[in-house]
């Protein structure tokens, strides 16, 4: 292959890994929450909360890791609002999720005003793996630009996926998580506390969304800008369906969509494509992730289709003990 096109492709993949990482965290979190039977459409709001909390604490303390923890705590705490409506009050989860997004956006927009001007914040470190360069043949042009020098959150993503999969599919707590999301009455009948399980995983999902936000504001685009997630939370909600609630498939989706977000820029640089001469076309390209999300949400709101795609059977349904037909 010609070197120029190889570089081009490697660049796009590299961009996919970087911009896809926050998406991956958010998607993994939402997968966990949804597998416990709770739908949390507030990912966007929780990501924003995580991004601002992470940025502010990192700036205040000088330690980005405190920032990450604060971001996760903020996302998790906010998610409990959705938990309260969905689990305890047995309300409509679609409505409460939307409300959560509004709360998250409003809160961060007000509280974040003071941080908009700040340009220097302690960032999460970059990891250098020099040996990547030395691998014969594919080292210099492929491995090094992809994995040689990346932010630590990328590697965290690589670790989290198998960890989440292992937790859900191979452990006792994971078995309980799945049972609560598939058939809460069966879980209840053997003494599993359905509400406690659901609260736990709503919180974990929120913390993951917070992590996604903090990795955005402390690593990928180390800044605080109002509404900086720009709809990524919604893309994550869509990716959950695309991934069929499976963490491994989430990886693929998150990185593809990470790359898609960058693609408009890259394609405009390619001379022989129409995008270079006509910037309007680029706007259309930018729509792709959002179009995908809209389609995914339409699909996910049709129960029959959701079933076929393998959604947890009790997703979005509050559990009431002794309810007939539950």
């Amino acid at each position, binding site marked *: 292959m010609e070197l120029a096109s190889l570089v081009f492709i490697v660049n796009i993949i590299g961009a996919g890994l970087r911009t896809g990482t926050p998406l991956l965290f958010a998607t993994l979190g939402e997968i966990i929450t949804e597998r416990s039977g709770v739908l949390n459409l507030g990912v966007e709001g929780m990501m924003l909360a995580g991004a601002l909390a992470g940025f502010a604490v990192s700036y205040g303390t000088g330690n980005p890791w405190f920032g990450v923890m604060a971001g996760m705590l903020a996302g998790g705490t906010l998610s409990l609002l959705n938990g309260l409506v969905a689990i305890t009050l047995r309300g409509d989860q679609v409505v409460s999720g939307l409300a959560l997004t509004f709360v998250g956006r409003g809160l961060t927009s007000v509280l974040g005003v003071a941080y908009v001007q700040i340009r220097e914040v302690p960032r999460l470190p970059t990891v250098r793996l020099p040996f990547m360069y030395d691998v014969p043949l594919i080292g210099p042009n492929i491995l090094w630009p992809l994995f040689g020098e990346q932010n630590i959150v990328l590697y965290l993503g690589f670790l989290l996926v198998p960890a989440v999969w292992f937790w859900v599919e191979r452990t006792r707590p994971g078995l309980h998580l799945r049972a609560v999301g598939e058939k809460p009455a069966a879980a209840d009948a053997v003494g599993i506390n359905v509400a406690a399980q659901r609260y736990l995983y709503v919180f974990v999902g929120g913390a993951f969304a917070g992590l996604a936000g903090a990795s955005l504001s402390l690593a990928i685009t180390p800044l605080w800008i109002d509404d900086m997630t720009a709809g990524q939370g919604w893309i994550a909600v869509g990716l959950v369906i695309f991934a069929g609630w499976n963490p491994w498939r989430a990886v693929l989706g998150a990185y593809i969509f990470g790359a898609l977000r960058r693609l408009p820029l890259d394609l405009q640089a390619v001379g022989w494509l129409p995008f270079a001469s006509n910037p309007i076309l680029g706007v259309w390209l930018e729509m792709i992730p959002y179009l995908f999300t809209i389609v995914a949400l339409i699909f996910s709101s049709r129960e029959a289709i959701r079933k076929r795609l393998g959604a947890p059977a009790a997703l979005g349904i509050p559990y009431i003990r002794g309810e*007939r037909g539950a």
Partner: protein
Amino acid sequence: MSESQFAFEMRGITKRFPGVLANDNVDFAVREGEIHALLGENGAGKSTLMNMLNGLYRPDEGQIFIKDQAVRFSSPREAINHGIGMVHQHFMLVPTQSVAENLILGQSAPRFYINYSELEAQVAELSEKFGLAVDPRAKIWQLSVGEQQRVEVLKMLYQGAKILIMDEPTAVLTPQEVTDLFDTLRSMTASGHTIVFISHKLDEVVAIADRVTVLQRGRVTATVEGKDTTKAELARLMVGREVLFRIQKAPAQPGAEALVIENISCENDRGLPALRNLSLTVRAGEVVGIAGVAGNGQTELAEVIAGLRAATEGRVIVQGQEVTGKRVAAGEQSEASKGGSWDIQVSLDIGDSSINLSKGDERPEKQAAPIMVSEGLAYIPADRTGVGSSPNLSLIDNLILKAYRRPPIGKGWRIDLSLAREQAEKLVEQFNVMTPNVDTPARLLSGGNLQKLILAREISSRPKVIIAVYPVRGLDVGAIEAIHQMLIDERNRGTAILLISEDLDELLSLSDRIVVVFEGQIMGEVPPEDERVDEIGLMMAGTRVEAVHAS
């Protein structure tokens, strides 16, 4: 009281639900190592009583003793820690998980990592020990109902239950599976287990129970020895009067062809062929029974006729009108639908969406066809909560689901609620539905009462054709008698009835002709005579009628 003669004892138990006294000062004692049957009409409070023993509900009054020790359970977990396990009327298994996973659900071991190969070997060993053959790796949704029940029993044994409560375990089993279950139960009592067995099938109770306790409207009316009792006595104790086990009926007077099924083929939920080129005719004023082992296309047949499932080939003709692939227009009158105006279709969608949600996917494509089924088709589905009723709506709303669109209840764009209430109250009384009032949500009715409610709605719509799928499954003898009588009255009125059932007694008693299906095809037709039972059995196993007669 002699020491530990009883495995457990319930004393003076009272349980109230809003508007219902479900258990009224109940004393119930079960001896160690016995099979004790709990009998009673639908809604008598059997499940409620056992749910208290199992820790799912807490009694309002009264106490539970295990080996003379007073106990108090706040969750099923605590009950199982005291050795009490329950197999529920509706299975409590996670369909997407494997047999082995279901067994360890909620258990304290393994603590974290699940070693699947070790676990599966352990489960295989246990299932061998009690003769409960099932593949530990199979997913629950892949198993037949009988196998799922074995998993439930295994689960309780695995969790160390010494007292096993089984709530209507045989309601959904084939005769062979019932025999297997009884063998298991006997081997369990032989190894020191105690069993509480709830059933409406008096033959089974007489066959297996050491003692029988009868509940009537929440109170204990009698406890008798199993070997001293008879079916008739038990029925009398339950219902408080003599019960007819076989309906009296005059010979059928078949009229015109009311339902014609021509070369119908269709697929099941998994996309496999369910019906293969099946043809059948039901005339006005006759009952045609469909016999067959569950899963041979019976439910799909009913769904195709009702318009809930698309046929891949063939035609369904009701009262001379082809209706293939169209939805049941919930009793829409011909005059109204002939206009085929848009508002009718829209209101249809609103009307049915609440009950069809779970089926949405399999709906035939032609559902928006402007001419809806208008010939009075009534459908009594096997799935009472998913298709037959709308669990969260009140009894009134459920009863007017077929009638709200036309006078007298539908008045232009509004519904005459006071008339609806009046009619609902009348139907509830006429069909003897046990409920505090007509505003109760349908989900709170006991299984039998829900079925009576569905029948009340369907029969009151004055249908020309009735499709009844397992109409008396899970019902008590009194209710069965009443429902059979209703169906026969309908037939005598000139309604064509297609009866799908697994219960040969029911088929023999109601049908004017019996058609046997196997793997989506008709094996042959038999007159409903007791001497022909063996013949029917052979055909249910896949032998064609010609072959049966040849041998």
